[in-house]
């Protein structure tokens, strides 16, 4: 796929400062009786320029909430605490108008369902034009040309004609491409992609992953990818953050975390998915089901399902400790100490 040179954001690539830096994020909701519970807690991570970081977790793990909080897109009833530092500003303490300046501009987001992300009664091109006009004043003729460039950047053939199409005339994969075109229209420093391939067929998923890889390589846009699919993380990401019950349970470079998982949850998750290159042995299932965020267990949140739990696990929640260079896990036991028992 050809990436148009005019979309390179060269200066972002060599910064040593993180693009976004999340510290002690906590998202609380209220029960009917007024007491509070957290769906996300103690979450801290950085996304460096040009990096692709994956957040992997199951439904209810808080991965989407975490991603949305960066743009303050969490539900109004949710109370955010902690900080999200973006280019020296704390997004949580900015006035709403300033957050709107960042949203869709410096930080863009694409969602799982490309069907509901477009307005069905406006042409695709007009909607992308609007995304550009919101943040910059561009002449009408330039605007049209820009939309055509963007559509061909994301691999949509015959872009002049396609810009005049309505969303329903696009297939799911094309809609996700168009949405990506809209998201990168203002050359964002960070693209947040929430399950961008989940609704798509595998052949289309592969194309969208290739598109993400191209955008990242050619324009240096950092990507925060939210997914439940570990294989997608293995394919795309430099770093991975594994979330469970609203917490980061393991974090590190993809190769290291997947090849030598130290948290029993990560380890079990990898053993529980059938692999294309694997044989048909029995899958190692994780017993039980993810906890209800309103009634989390004592101590480690994975402990009731963990085959390696010891007494301390149910008494005291482990910290997210540095267990190797650049590799953290929230576990008292760690797989390297029990791997012999695991087989």
């Amino acid at each position, binding site marked *: 796929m050809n990436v148009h040179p005019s979309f390179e954001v060269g200066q972002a690539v060599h910064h040593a400062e993180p693009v976004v830096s999340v510290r002690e994020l906590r998202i609380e909701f209220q029960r009917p009786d007024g007491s509070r519970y957290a769906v996300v807690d103690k979450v801290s991570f950085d996304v460096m320029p040009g990096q692709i970081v994956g957040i992997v977790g*199951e*439904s209810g793990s808080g991965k989407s909430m975490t991603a949305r909080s960066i743009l303050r897109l969490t539900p109004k009833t949710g109370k955010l605490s902690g900080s999200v530092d973006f280019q020296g500003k704390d997004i949580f303490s900015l006035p709403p108008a300033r957050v709107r300046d960042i949203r869709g501009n410096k930080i863009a987001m694409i969602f799982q369902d490309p069907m509901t992300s477009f307005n069905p009664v406006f042409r695709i091109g007009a909607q992308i034009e609007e995304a550009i006009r919101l943040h910059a004043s561009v002449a009408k003729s330039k605007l049209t040309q820009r939309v055509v460039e963007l559509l061909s950047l994301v691999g949509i*053939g015959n872009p002049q004609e396609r810009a005049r199409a309505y969303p329903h005339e696009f297939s*799911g994969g094309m809609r996700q491409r168009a949405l990506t075109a809209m998201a990168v229209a203002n050359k964002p420093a960070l693209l947040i992609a929430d399950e961008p391939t989940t609704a798509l*067929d*595998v*052949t289309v*998923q*592969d194309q969208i*992953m290739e598109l993400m890889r191209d955008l990242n390589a050619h324009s240096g846009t950092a990507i925060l990818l939210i997914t*439940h*699919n*570990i*294989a*997608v*993380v*293995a*394919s795309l990401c430099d770093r991975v953050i594994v979330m469970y019950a609203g917490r980061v349970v393991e974090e590190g470079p*993809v*190769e290291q975390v*997947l*090849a030598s998982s130290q948290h029993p949850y990560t380890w*079990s*998750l*990898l053993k*529980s*998915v*059938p*692999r*294309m*290159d*694997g044989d*048909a042995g*029995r*899958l*190692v*299932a*994780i*017993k039980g*089901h*993810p906890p209800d965020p309103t009634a989390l267990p004592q101590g480690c949140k994975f402990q009731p*399902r963990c085959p390696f739990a010891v007494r301390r696990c149910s008494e005291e929640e482990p910290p997210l400790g540095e267990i190797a260079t650049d590799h953290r896990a929230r576990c008292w036991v760690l797989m390297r100490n029990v791997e012999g028992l695991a087989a």
Partner: protein
Amino acid sequence: MSVSFAETTPPGPLVHVRELRRHFDYGGNFFRRKTVKAVEDVSFDIAPGETLGLVGESGSGKSTLGRVVVGLDKATSGRVTIGGNSVETSRGRERRDLWRKAQMVFQDPYSSLNPKMTIRDTLAEPLRNFGIAKGRNADVMIRTALEACGLPARAMELYPREFSGGQRQRVGIARALIVRPDFIVADEPVSALDVSIQAQIINLMQDLRSEYGLTYLFIAHDLAVVKHVSDRVAVMYLGKIVEIAAAKALYARPLHPYTQLLLRSIPIPDPLAERERRRAVPKIEARRDLKPGQGCPFAPRCPRAQFPICAEEEPALLDKGDGALAACHFSETAHAVAGDRRAGAGGSADNPSLTVDAR
């Protein structure tokens, strides 16, 4: 307690599907109907105790096929027999017996259970409908079915909302199992579940299969899951089966270019293996000028298509050796692919004029 089909009937296919079609009319007017051929000329057999995996992308017709086979939808034409009884023509007792013998497990455990019925009522209903058991006897059977599916007996008193997704799917499986079916069509039984729960349900279905001698038609879009559970796999594309073969052979040596494309598209949860896979994926540009018509339906996306033949003549689903069938003018035989791998030499010796260099 097991009612194994294999014990009571001479060997032969349990499920026999021939030239099955399901067309849907839409739009147009009285004189000019528009038709979607959701299932078009599909034939296959499933042996007793076998699991046939059915894969395809959204819109390929795999769910429609499953519904027609189990009798939830009427075929436009063609034949389906299950255990020797025709799904289309059987009436009365024979018909009821068929309804019992062939059960279905649905994708969405949230919408396939009645929220106003307790689990006991949900499971007692089929027992009553088929005149199998009532009252206390039914309770015993319900308890057994729930336990077989890994649910405690007290689940009987609860409503679906009190269960997690994985537990609801267990209830859905128990409901299918309780009438002692021979054959279960499972339509995406794990795709709505969390990753950590999928393995539980897959393991459960495999345990039940060996315990009760069940035969499955396992429909899913996740090729890794299908590989894991299936003995044989059928690949559907736009309403047709384009390849059907033993699971091991199909994944090791896919014959049809569409199967090859599908298999190459799946990422692997291991960065090194994944890098290898990506290197091996050839870039294919779809030919937008070709419209699917009378030729091969896959021709517009096919990296190996040759013209005019692929655009004009539809390939039949033919035996390519080793029990593998593929619908492609240019696919090698199973032997040739295997030989190809070993010797790195050319394609089919039988029909050199139709051999295309894939590399």
